[in-house]
């Protein structure tokens, strides 16, 4: 086999492998479906997205390299082309090279991975605290600084539609399975600490736009934090199997500007006083 031939075939294979990679990594997004991790609306979610993309691209390059060599060999070194088998069976030099280079690549990956993780785990300096309790199959939110608390369940429209053979077309329901009766309302631009726990079994609180999930475990109080940069409505779901209605305990976070949040808080407190009075009257 002439050397030029090998190079020409290798280039053709490389082009084919790159085309196949494009087909599976880029083309599906042209259908209008989301196929990648969200960049989200927090520093953490941006960190995790960047990290995801760095590692993904490193993996893609490694994969393209390995598959190009392999398929070049499959094209050229076949018996039907009269290729005679070589006799070599080891090369200490090559084996040392392909042990050391991956280690170096790992070191390169480990640096941003460590930085992001250290930043993620630093919940110091929080300006407000929300306690989240998971139970089958609802979330309870307690604003520890504002003395507000409520339970958040799947919205009734979704709940009716999700029954077996309900006859309701899921597409006709607004935010099917991702809507709740009482969303968690949070201010933007404030560092918020979450204390996460559970009452019965393990749940996991996950809003992709915030960039993380954290398990809610009975008997444990886990800490996590966020600092939302953009007002909006962000949806998520329980991420740890928690029984039959695990798929039906969504999370909705509404992030409001600071002043809107404050007026929401006063509304809630006013409403609470009212309902307390009602209880007393009754």
């Amino acid at each position, binding site marked *: 086999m002439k050397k030029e031939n090998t190079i020409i075939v290798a280039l053709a294979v490389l082009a084919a492998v790159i085309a196949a990679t494009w087909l599976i990594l880029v083309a599906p997004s042209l259908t209008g479906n989301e196929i990648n991790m969200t960049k989200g609306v927090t520093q953490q979610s941006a960190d995790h997205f960047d990290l995801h993309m760095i590692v993904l691209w490193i993996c893609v390059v490694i994969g393209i390299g390995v598959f190009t060599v*392999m398929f070049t060999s499959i094209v050229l070194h076949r018996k039907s082309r009269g290729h005679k088998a070589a006799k070599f069976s080891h090369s200490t030099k090559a084996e040392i090279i392909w042990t050391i280079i991956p280690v170096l690549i*790992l070191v390169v990956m480990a640096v941003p*991975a460590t930085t992001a993780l250290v930043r993620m785990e630093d919940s110091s300096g929080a300006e407000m605290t929300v306690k989240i309790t998971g139970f089958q199959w609802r979330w309870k939110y307690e604003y520890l600084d504002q003395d507000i608390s409520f339970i958040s369940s799947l919205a009734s429209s979704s709940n009716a539609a999700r029954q077996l053979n309900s006859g309701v077309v899921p*597409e006709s329901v607004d935010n099917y399975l991702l809507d709740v009766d009482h969303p968690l309302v949070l201010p933007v631009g404030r560092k918020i600490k979450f204390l996460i726990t559970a009452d019965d079994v393990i749940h996991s609180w996950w809003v992709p736009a915030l960039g993380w999930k954290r398990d809610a*475990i009975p008997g444990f109080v886990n800490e996590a934090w966020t600092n939302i940069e953009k007002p909006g409505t962000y949806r998520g779901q329980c991420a740890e199997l928690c029984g039959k209605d695990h*798929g039906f305990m969504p999370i909705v976070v509404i992030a409001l500007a600071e002043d809107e949040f404050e007026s929401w808080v006063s509304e809630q407190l006013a409403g609470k006083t009212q309902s307390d009075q009602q209880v007393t009257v009754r």
Partner: protein
Amino acid sequence: MTTEAIHQDVNEAHDDHDHGDHKPTGFLDRWLFTTNHKDIGTLYLIFSLTMFLIGGAMAMVIRAELFMPGLQLVEPDFFNQMTTMHALIMVFGAVMPAWVGFANWLVPMMIGAPDMALPRMNNWSFWILPFAFTMLLSTLFMDSGGPAAGWTLYPPLVLQTGTSFAFVVFAVHMMGVSSIMGSINIIATIFNMRAPGMRLLRMPMFVWTWLITAFLLIAVMPVLAGAVTMLLTDHFFSTNFFNAAGGGDPVMFQHIFWFFGHPEVYIMILPAFGVISEILPTFSRKPLFGYASMVYATATIAFLSFIVWAHHMFTVGMPLQAELFFMYATMLISVPTGVKVFNWVSTMWQGSMTFETPMLFAIGFVVLFTIGGLSGLMLAITAADFQYHDTYFVVAHFHYVLVPGAVFALMAATYYWLPKFTGNMYSEKWGKIHFWLSAIFVNVLFFPQHYLGLAGMPRRIPDYSPQFADFNMISSIGGFAFGATQLIFVGIVWHCAFRSKVKATPEVWEGSRGLEWTLDSPPAYHSFNTPPEVTCNALSRAD
């Protein structure tokens, strides 16, 4: 003695029928009371194929319910029973017994032994399994239903299972006993029954990977047994090992489970590495590249598998230092795994390749396992895992290493050694059809699940938001087609065993090396009654 001489010797032994071939005659004597490694191997393989079809049928239920948004077919609780049982059946009933079946058939033939070292225990370790799985499956028909907390059996959720939970725990105990006995047998056979000259570093890679796998099994199956026993007493005898209200620790279960569970994934994949290392050299007509580093890489992976367990539970809230340790340790696994992939590609490089069905499955394995390995590297990155964890991205990852990984290797092994086992050639045409349909549909089935996970779809949910509809439908179509394709495989195996007119030669393949190919196809009932002399050129390694 040359290869031919060994071969002749065996033929003579075979011809006078005094040593090799006295099979028991009655059906029960032959199959129920058998102590023969080939018969027991066959039983294991038939059993695991049956379980593969049952577990596959459950996967069809799962994919059918997920075909479109809304609940159309099953209640959520039954859906959870299906995902749980699918995993338990596939892991403990299909993949693990299939590898033990191949070990039974091949280890004695590969090391030049007449049979396994402990034949009666061998019988017992198999015959436990049908009872264990009958019991496990029977829970689906009990009033309280089968287990529905996922195969990881996390408390406190799993403790909400009804009385059927006792049956699940006992079934897991029996599977563990079976695995431990099987492993002890394999270790005893490899250490005591090798033919003269079959030094450890001359053993075929399949024997090496199984030896290491057997040690992993002995190390971790008792851990699983301990964990489920604690669940049992928590459930029925008011202990509080994992009950926070009673001073217990639910996270402790996860640590114990994954100390078993991570080595467990290597228990399923290391024998696959061995098979690929046997098949690629044969059809490349070239010795395995870097035999010694393959052995060391396998041992390194096995060692590392004990210190990475907590990467399955990054989100439980561990201290930063622990998260860093488990991230770094997990990333390290990609180094020996990379060595293996590079060595396989180098084995093919400059070979003289042909592409019979076993080779196709082996190449499919290398490509698709590499994809699964690379997504594994992504999952190792703790911070990013806070997004990936418990999504379909994880589902895609582990199915890539288990289906086009372990299962493709099992298919490759079947096509490679079935002519040796049965004495007949399978249909190459149908084998290739089976390969191409499997290779296409396994990707249609699992690749879109990467997108679903990244876009935010959690795993283990029976219904989902319509934004995930398109790729779920594609995935389900791939799933149905992949499932149907496996029925072709059943037909091919049946045809090869009972109908095929094409007799296999002792070597079967042009480039095959190793002691098993010096025996007749099918081999005599007892493989080597006199130990063969092991020469370098009879083996699959060159140096």
